[in-house]
């Protein structure tokens, strides 16, 4: 036994690559369930940090947050009543493990803080749902119910800023569907099956199917007197609202957004519709619009955006960016879609410290990077951590992704007109709208961002049931060829892991890396494994 090497491995963790002896991350897991045989040894310092500051810290806060934000009784009732929370609360730390596997040092720390923020915001939302839910309170419409507004998860939370502190907006599907299928991919399948059982074909967007299925199974808390729906991102979203209205039967405001939004006339229209929404909220809740609150919240949101730009600057121009692909994508889409909230600022403060340390000390958190990858279009929700695997296995470092880039703007607050104009723009640049289902020219902003982030490869998500992206499939193929760009397609069906399994996604990437790129894996133990039963 090489004592010196053993001590080195103990202190620093095993090296990444097979040539150096290799940490063989694929051997850590049980077959099928992908549960740990034993936890990953990341070296002494990082293992201790992971245990205390990630694993234990987050477990403690998952209890504390529940107690502070609505109480244990409401939580217990909610777990008993709603399948999605019961099935996803305990695997949360497994979700951390999947996304942070193999991460070391600053990358592990910064990425974990992003996860922590998402967990906290999730708890806050479902606890509000449960605390206001008439179903958990004997049919009673309590004060929280009267001060909560429900909306499609694709409605930007910022449109409710004028009522900050008085009306709490809680998206209908963000927790029951969107967050849960990241944490436990099995939960959502039940909802997809439910809506198909009443006759819906299998081909519409599975995200919308799942969002409808929650209603079919009556698995949505009744926590607000009014609802705001939206046609974002696609035709199926419009139709989902129709189905939701049928089940929900509450006063409803539909907030439209155009597909092709480069027309100033369209922006004007959108501005007027946002004002109509504000009138609707005033009418339904009897609470006046507050310009001061709107400005205050927007300025706070702008602060978040400005830090994001700083992060992008580091990501694009150096190797010192300490956030992995999955943390970057999920945190950013959560933050921008939900809108300003205190936890984002707390997190950004911590991440800024790490970022500044990485830049000043020239710490490369992803030293085995072989290709700088940009991920484009909509990601597989059941395998958002594919990029963690891709880095560990192949050295494919996902620097940035489409979801992070959509809301690439701050909002002016110097006048009502400017604010409204920018809010309309922000609303129209909603997730998936701008660069997936929206106008063709925005889909092809890819090249511009590729250059900006200094990427040499594209991971092209191929959401099989997204008509907007499928409708441009051939043009992308043509452009990749004409521009001589290395691109691999990642087929998937958003939340539905049955259509294209995680193993199939890995196989396709493996094939590309061996047959097209002629490269050898960094960690061969990750090439092929069975995780079909994992969360």
């Amino acid at each position, binding site marked *: 036994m090489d004592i010196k090497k053993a001590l080195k491995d103990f202190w620093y963790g095993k090296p990444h690559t097979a040539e150096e002896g290799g940490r063989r991350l694929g051997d850590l897991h049980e077959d099928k369930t992908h549960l740990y045989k034993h936890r990953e040894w990341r070296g002494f310092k990082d293992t201790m940090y992971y245990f205390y500051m990630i694993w234990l810290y987050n477990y403690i806060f998952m209890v504390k947050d529940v107690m502070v934000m609505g109480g244990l009784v409401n939580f217990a009732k909610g777990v008993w009543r709603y399948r999605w929370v019961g099935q996803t609360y305990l695997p949360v730390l497994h979700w951390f493990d999947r996304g942070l596997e193999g991460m070391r040092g600053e990358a592990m720390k910064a990425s974990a803080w992003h996860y922590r923020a998402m967990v906290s915001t999730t708890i806050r939302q479902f606890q509000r749902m449960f605390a206001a839910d008439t179903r958990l309170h004997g049919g009673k419409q309590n004060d929280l119910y009267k001060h909560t507004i429900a909306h499609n998860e694709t409605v930007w939370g910022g449109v409710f800023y004028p009522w900050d502190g008085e009306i709490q907006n809680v998206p209908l599907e963000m927790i029951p569907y969107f967050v849960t299928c990241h944490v436990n991919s099995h939960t959502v399948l039940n909802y997809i099956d439910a809506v198909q059982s009443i006759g819906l074909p299998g*081909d519409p*967007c599975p995200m919308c199917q799942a969002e409808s299925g929650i209603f079919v199974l009556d698995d949505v808390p009744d926590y607000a007197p009014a609802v705001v729906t939206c046609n974002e991102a*696609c035709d199926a979203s419009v*139709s*989902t609202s129709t189905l939701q209205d049928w089940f929900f039967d509450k006063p409803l405001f539909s907030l439209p957004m155009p597909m092709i939004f480069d027309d100033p*006339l369209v922006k004007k229209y959108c501005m007027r519709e946002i004002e109509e929404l504000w009138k609707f909220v005033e009418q339904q809740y009897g609470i006046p619009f507050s310009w001061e609150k709107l400005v205050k919240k927007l300025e706070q949101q702008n602060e978040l955006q400005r830090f994001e730009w700083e992060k992008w600057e580091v990501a694009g121009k150096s190797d010192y960016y300490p956030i992995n692909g999955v943390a970057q994508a999920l945190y950013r889409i959560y933050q921008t879609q939900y809108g300003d909230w205190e936890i984002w600022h707390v997190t950004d403060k911590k991440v800024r410290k790490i970022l500044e340390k990485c830049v000043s000390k020239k710490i490369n958190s992803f030293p085995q990077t072989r290709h700088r990858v940009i991920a484009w279009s909509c990601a597989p929700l059941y395998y958002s951590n594919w990029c963690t695997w891709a880095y560990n296995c192949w050295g494919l470092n996902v620097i940035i992704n489409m979801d992070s880039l959509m809301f690439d703007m701050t909002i002016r607050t110097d006048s009502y007109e400017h604010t409204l104009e920018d809010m309309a723009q922000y609303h129209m640049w909603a997730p998936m709208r701008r660069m997936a*289902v929206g106008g063709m020219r925005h889909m092809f902003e890819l090249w511009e961002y590729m250059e900006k982030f200094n990427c040499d490869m594209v991971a092209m998500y191929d959401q099989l049931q997204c008509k907007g992206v*499928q409708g441009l499939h051939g043009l992308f193929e043509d452009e990749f060829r004409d521009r001589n760009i290395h691109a691999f397609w990642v087929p998937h069906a958003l939340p539905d892991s049955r259509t294209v399994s995680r193993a199939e996604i890995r196989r396709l990437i493996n094939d590309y890396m061996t047959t097209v790129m002629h490269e050898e894996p960094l960690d061969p133990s990750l090439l092929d494994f069975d995780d079909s039963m994992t969360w």
Partner: protein
Amino acid sequence: MRDLKHLIYFENLLQEANNDLVKQAKADGKRAIGYTCYFMPEVLLDLPGCFSVRLRAPRCTSPDIATYYMSARVCHYARSLMERALEGGFNFLDAQMATETCTATCRFQEHLEQKHIDSVKDMRIIDNDDFFCSFSDVPFKNNQIAYEHFAEQLRVHVLDELNKHFGIDVSDEAIRQAVEQHNEVCRLINEIGDYRKLDNPTITGYEFHVIQLVSLVCPKYLILPYLRETAEELKTREPDLKKEFRCKVVLAGSENDDPDFTKLVESCGARVVCDRYCYGAVESRQPIELKEGEDPVFTIAKHYLVTSNCPRFMPQDEMRARKQRIAELAKEYHADGVIIASNKFCEYWSYERVIDTVILKRDFGLPVCSIEKEYINSASGQLRTRFQAFVESVEIKQIQEGK
């Protein structure tokens, strides 16, 4: 019944987008303006100097190249149009007045558009130097804001463009003239269609489908004489003594420009008495009422939003009114049941069909046959079985009710 004099001629006109009447109008020096969706007001494309052609891709069963560009998981209608365009079948078009009203047709039309940007190549699918494509935004709602917005879109993206590129007269006077012509087409189609309300209709659903389609794809001024003659002919047409059908149905649903589909339904014992689907007459053949002193563009914009029953409308009252509308049509046309057909991969109608299937039966007591179909109806054996079973079930219901 005696055959309609022009039926075969009409059928022939539907075999190609660039049919004889289109060629004749082009030879007359008129500009051919394509469109796909009801929301693009055809009346504005029928201004003096140009004519509208609602795009179809008849007999396109294998859109291979389009499938490369748009994948196999996009609506067959959009892919068929793309294939036909790639084949050169739409080269006669001088412009495409596009709408983003559904994702699939929007993507098809974006392929036609010459964008002149660095990030993506222009395919120049339409081999015509004059050709251009202009997109209009269509609101999802029926309110004053939406009417004003849509009117502005039509002014800027349709009328101004037609004037700029082809010098088309877009004055109020010219618009009124086009509306007059449009209303005559509507009057004739409605007159012809009203025979379907008779106890023993003197026109079949198939015949009406063909007539309605030619009114959409041919230059109005050239098809009008034939429509007039057909309307006249129908005044004296005698029905068969013995009814050739066992029940009457409303055919509702998504895009349908395939008269053979209607023929298939009717061959199974049903008579299609009402056509509430895209390309049908229920929406598109309602006359436009222009009042003195009113802005005609605003009136037209409002007309097309108000008359549409598209599942694309999002407000609560609209979503609920659509079911009511189908039930009212069933009553008005004395239908015994409703067939709801959605094209595969049509997201709007996939959902709408599910809800209609439940609501129409539960709240209005209407028997419903719910089917999913392709653009070109190739699975006729399976569909035939479904329709036959539906007709039988309606008959059994009638027997049980003592009718």
